[in-house]
């Protein structure tokens, strides 16, 4: 028993070690002072990269594009997905299992397949590829995640709360605003964050649908070919720090509700 316990703890510790190994490298190499173009070998400590995180203008531009894309795609996904989740949990629908299957399939489809099919659609319909097509693609794969996350939240939430609100004279929309919305707010935030991080990170689908637009992952894939600046590591660390803050926020708001 004691040995089993030690083994268990050992595996867990090792797992966390592996999970954070690349993260440590990313954070540490943000402080590296590479001699040449490739921030791959430790050369020496500097704060220079942190003092000028946006020095790499093309990187900053790609980062800004990705942020804008992730924000708008997550907004679309959260709204559309939220509405779908409401319909699926608060109404009796004959087609429910079909719709749920339709929602599950995009997230269980290999990315490269989605990418291929979207590219083909855009090419065949002569839709010029760029930010718009990226937005379509990203909001699509985020939609499933958002809808299913929110659906889980809504199922968990006691449906009689909304009935209670209406029973107490709230009109359906009022009941939604006064009761449902505040209660699923942590879920909305979680769905939004999940969509946001998925969109920010997507490479394959973006590669196929981006046209001339350069997102952060596309830029970094390109940078691998020519220059891996420490600013890449700095920005990644910043995103991580922001995520920690938001994650803390959502955990806290989830707890208070």
């Amino acid at each position: 028993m004691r040995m089993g316990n030690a083994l268990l703890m050992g595996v867990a510790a090792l797992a966390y070690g592996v999970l954070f190994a690349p993260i440590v490298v990313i954070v540490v190499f943000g402080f590296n002072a590479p001699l040449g173009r490739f921030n791959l070998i430790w050369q020496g400590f500097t704060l220079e990269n942190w003092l000028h995180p946006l020095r790499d203008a093309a990187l900053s531009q790609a980062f800004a594009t990705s942020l804008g894309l992730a924000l708008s795609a997550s907004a679309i996904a959260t709204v559309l997905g939220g509405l779908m989740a409401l319909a699926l949990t608060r109404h009796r629908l004959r087609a429910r299992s079909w719709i749920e299957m339709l929602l599950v399939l995009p997230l269980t489809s290999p990315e490269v397949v989605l990418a291929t099919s979207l590219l083909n659609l855009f090419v065949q319909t002569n839709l010029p590829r760029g930010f718009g097509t990226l937005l379509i693609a990203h909001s699509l794969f985020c939609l499933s995640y958002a809808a299913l996350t929110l659906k889980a939240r809504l199922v968990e939430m006691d449906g009689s709360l909304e009935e209670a609100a209406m029973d107490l004279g709230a009109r359906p929309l009022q009941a939604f605003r006064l009761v449902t919305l505040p209660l699923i707010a942590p879920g909305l935030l979680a769905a939004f964050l999940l969509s946001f991080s998925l969109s920010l990170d997507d490479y394959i689908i973006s590669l196929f649908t981006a046209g001339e637009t350069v997102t952060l992952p596309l830029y970094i894939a390109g940078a691998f070919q020519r220059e891996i600046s420490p600013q890449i590591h700095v920005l990644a660390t910043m995103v991580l720090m922001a995520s920690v803050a938001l994650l803390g926020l959502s955990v806290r708001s989830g707890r208070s509700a």
Partner: protein
Amino acid sequence: MNVSRRSPRAEARPPLHRQAWLPWLLLTPGLIWLLLWFVLPLAQLLPVSLSENADRFRMTLVFRGRIANYAEVMTQYAPVLARSLAYAAASTALAALIAYPLAWVIRFRGGRWKGLLLALVVLPFFTSSMVRAIAWTTLLGDDGPLLSTLRALGLPPGTRLLNTAVAVVGGLTYNALPFMVLPITLSLERIPTELLDAARDLQAGPWIVFRRVVLPLSAPGLAAGIVLSLIPAAGDVVNAQFLGGPNNRMIGNVVQSLILVQRQLPRGAALALVLMALMTATVLVHVRRHGSSDLTLS
């Protein structure tokens, strides 16, 4: 994370609103989005996969009902397909072996740190996978910190990690970890501790408690974790591209090459659809057996 009390009749609850059109009003925008950008493109891929590329640079496709496209990619890329599935299976198995004990520790030893421990599993994935790939190349390089350390500890020189199957499977395993840990933890969370007490009360040792009680009850979570790990792994592109060598390419790389480099859209489409069919079959089997709720981590 806290499992809130469910209303026992939440599922059977009759409609709140009496208007039959209301749910459809709520569903319509999302359904249109899904139909337009998911179902339609996939449906369009089918005729493309049966076409002939009359001019590969102009991408003029002629529909010929050319089933041979499938036969060709299946014969030519059978080894890559087999390799992809093998890598995906290996990484899924590894991820399960690591994730289960981890989930166990989080669930039964986590105490008030449970939420934090779970968040820590997800946290690394808030960094860009591209940047993580760069970090892996730094870590796994021949003169990198890992191999240097191991060599100092007596690993024979000449051992490589980067650009090997080990690195690719390792990368896939890494990506699979949260998708494995989350559903397993959620399913363990649903097992009341009284059941474990009951088992112990009936003279079951820790191993028996695990094998006869916990494992069967967490099976749906494990199954969901397997599906959620297997599918992205089988279609992965990035790990083979950045961490693999020429003998470790996966089916995703081939699809990418067929479409973007070789400009053979029909064959690329055919291969993509084969992959899609395999994965959809996996999902359907899973959903039939376990339902879809665990797949969505709910």
